[in-house]
C-alpha cells in the first residue's frame, strides 16, 4: 500500500502542490495526467525527496511507514523507485559497478549480505535478456553518451535489478521510439503482474495504449481535479485538458 496524504509543497517559495491525496494498492497502475505546470513532476520530486522542494507537508507512506522525513537514499531503500524524465549522466562511472553499488546499498539497508561481482553479473545478465540489451551496455559510463532511448532503457534495467515496491515513471514515454516503448511497457506490465505499485506521470495518452491504467487522475493547479478509469484518458485525448474541466 502506497498512500499520499494531503501533500503540499513549494518550490522557490511558490506553492505548487496544494493538497494531494492518493491511495495505491499492490498490483494497481495509476496514471497522473495534467497540463504543463499542473504540478505532476513536482509530485515525483516530493516523493523521492528532491532538494528543490521546500518543507513539504503531509504524509507519504509505504505500508504504514511515513517516508517524507527520510533522506532520498533511505526512501529508495524503503522501496521507492523513480524512472527519471531526464536520467543524469555520471562520467567515468561504470554502469555495472553503479548498479551493484545500488543493489548492495539496499541489501545492507535491509541487513542482508552484499553480493559479489560474479553473482551480480549473473543476476544482471538475466535482466539484460529481458530487455534485449547487450552486455556491452554495462561497461559504459552511467548514461554518459547514451542516446535518449538508451537512457530510458537503462532506467528500466535499474528498475528490474533493484526490484522496488513502488515504481514511478516520470514522462518515460518522451523521446522513445516505438520499439523501446514496447519494451518498457512489457517490463512495467511484468511488474504489475508481480503485485507492485505503479505510478505513471505522463502528458500524453500514448503510453497508456501499452500500459493500461486502473485509475487515471487529472492534475490541475496542484490538485487532483478528476479521477476516473482508463476511459478518462481517452476523453482527455479527444477533448483536451480544457474540454475535460468544463
Amino acid at each position, binding site marked *: 500500500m502506497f498512500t499520499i496524504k494531503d501533500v503540499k509543497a513549494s518550490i522557490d517559495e511558490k506553492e505548487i502542490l496544494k493538497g494531494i491525496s492518493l491511495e495505491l494498492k499492490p498490483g494497481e497502475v495509476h496514471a497522473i495526467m495534467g497540463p504543463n505546470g499542473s504540478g505532476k513532476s513536482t509530485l515525483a520530486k516530493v516523493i523521492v525527496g528532491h*532538494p528543490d522542494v521546500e518543507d513539504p507537508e503531509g504524509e507519504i507512506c509505504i505500508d504504514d511507514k511515513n517516508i517524507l522525513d527520510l*533522506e532520498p*537514499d533511505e526512501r*529508495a531503500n524503503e522501496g521507492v523507485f523513480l524512472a527519471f524524465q531526464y536520467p*543524469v549522466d*555520471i562520467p567515468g562511472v561504470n554502469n555495472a559497478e553503479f548498479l551493484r553499488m545500488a543493489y548492495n546499498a539496499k541489501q545492507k539497508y535491509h541487513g542482508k549480505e552484499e553480493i559479489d561481482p560474479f553473482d551480480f553479473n549473473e543476476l544482471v545478465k538475466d535482466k539484460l535478456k529481458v530487455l534485449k540489451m547487450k552486455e556491452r551496455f554495462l561497461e559504459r559510463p552511467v548514461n554518459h553518451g547514451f542516446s535518449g532511448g538508451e537512457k530510458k532503457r537503462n532506467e528500466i534495467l535499474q528498475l528490474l535489478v533493484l526490484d522496488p515496491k513502488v515504481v514511478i515513471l516520470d514522462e518515460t514515454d518522451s523521446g522513445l521510439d516505438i520499439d523501446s516503448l514496447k519494451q518498457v511497457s512489457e517490463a512495467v506490465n511484468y511488474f504489475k503482474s508481480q503485485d507492485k505499485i505503479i505510478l505513471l506521470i505522463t502528458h500524453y495518452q500514448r503510453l497508456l495504449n501499452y500500459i493500461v491504467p486502473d485509475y487515471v487522475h487529472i492534475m490541475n493547479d496542484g490538485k487532483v481535479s478528476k479521477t476516473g478509469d482508463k476511459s478518462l484518458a481517452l476523453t482527455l485525448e479527444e477533448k483536451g485538458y480544457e474540454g475535460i474541466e468544463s
Partner: protein
Amino acid sequence: MSLKEFEAIANKEYEYGFKTDIKTELIEKGLNEDVIRLISEKNKEPEFVLEFRLKAYRHWLKMEEPEWPLVDYPKIDYQDIHYYAAPEKKEKLKSMDDVDPELKRTFEKLGIPLQEQKKLANVAVDAIFDSVSVATTYKDKLLKHGVVFCPLSEAVEKYPDLVKKYMGSVVPHTDNFFAALNAAVFTEGSFVYVPKDTVCPMELSTYFRINAEDTGQFERTLIICEENASVSYLEGCTAPMFDKNQLHAAVVELVALDNADIKYSTVQNWYAGDPKTGKGGIYNFVTKRGKCLGKKSKISWTQIETGSAITWKYPSCILMGDDSIGEFYSVALTNHHQQADTGTKMIHIGKRTKSTIISKGISAGKSKNTYRGLVQINKSAKGSENFTQCDSMLIGPNCTANTFPYIDVRNASSTLGHEAATVKVSEEQILYCQQRGISLDDALTTIVNGFCSDVFKELPTEFAVEATQLLSLKLENTVG
C-alpha cells in the same frame, strides 16, 4: 541535506598519524659544511659523492626560495631542521629477520609487509624510515634477472660508476632551490637499474615514512632503464601528525635509453595538517624529472596527490630521443587547508616526440588547487604532438581552482591541443545516486572517482583500489 549548503565538516582522523617509539640517532639541527661531511661519513660515501654535495651546498647558498608558486607558508628556518635521522641499529642487516621488530610492526601497520610472499606478492618493497632504508624485499630474486633494486647508499658503494654517470644528469644541482638543497643533504632513496633487454619481473615500490620530529626528508631516487628494458615503480608515503610543519624535498631522476619504458606511479598521503586549523603537515617540495634519452623511449608519470599541507611538484619529461613519448596522469585532491601547485613540463627536443597530459584537480573545503604545466616544442622537434586535458572539480564555495598552462611552440610541423574545463558535482547527479539507494557520501565519492577514472586506470592494479579508497576517505563528510 542539500548541496547548496556545502560545508566542509572535517572530522576524519588521519589514519597513519601515529609515531613509532624507537631510539633515533640524530645529527644536530642546522646546516653547514660540517653537517654535510657528517652525513657523508655516516653513509660511508666515496669522495665523489661528498664533492657533489658540497658543490650543491655552495650553490644553494646563493639561491633564493621560489616565490612564484601559488602557495602561502611562513618562511622556513633551514637551521631549525635535523638533516639526518636514523633508527639506531647494531650491525648491518643480513636478512629480513634482523629488522627491528618495532620497525616491522610500523610498516605492517601501514600496510607494507616486509616479509616476502605476503599480501603484495608481486611487489618488491624498499622501506625507508626517516633517513635510512630499513629493508628491501626480493632483492636477490631481482638480481637473478640482472635488476638492481637497493637503497641509494648501497648503490654508491656497489655501483659507483652508474651513480657517477647518472646522478645529477637529469636534475642538476643548479636546477632549483629545493633540488640544490636535496643534492647537498640527501639521505637515502632508492636505486633501480634495469639492464638491456630486460622486463623487470615485478612491480618495484619504495615506501617512505617520516617518523622523527623536526626532521626533513631528502631522499633521492635514481632509475635507469637500458635499451629495450622496462620497469614499473611505485612510491608511497605517510608521516605522523606533528604540529610543526616538516619539509620533504626529494629528487627523482629517471633515465630511459632506446626503447626503454619507465612507469612511475606515486600515491602520496603525507600528513596534511590539522583539518580544522591547518596546523602542521608536510611541505612536499619535490623535483621529479625523466629524460627520454633513447629513441622510442617512454616515460610515464602517474600521481595521486592526496596528502601534504603544501604540494609543489612538476614531474616532467625531457623528450630527447626521436619518437620518444612522455605521459603525465595526475589526480590532485585538496581538502581543508591544503594547498597544491602541481603539474608537469614536457620539453620536446627529438623529432616526432609525443606527450599526453591528463590532470584532474579536485578542491574542497578551504583548499587551493593549481595546475601549472609547460609544453615546449622546440624547433628541432619536428612533427611532434601534445595533447593536454586538465579538468577541475570544485566542491563547496570556499575553495579555489587554478589552471595555468604555458604553451610554447617553435616549429611548423607540430600540433598541440590544450583543453581545460571546470566540472561541477550537480545536485541532480547526487539525487540520482541517492534515488538508487546510494548514500550521500558514497554518491560523492562515486562521482569523484568517475571524474578521475582516466587517471586511475593508469595505475598498476594493486594500487588502483588503494587510490580509490584513499580518495573516499579524504572526501568523507565533505558534503553536508
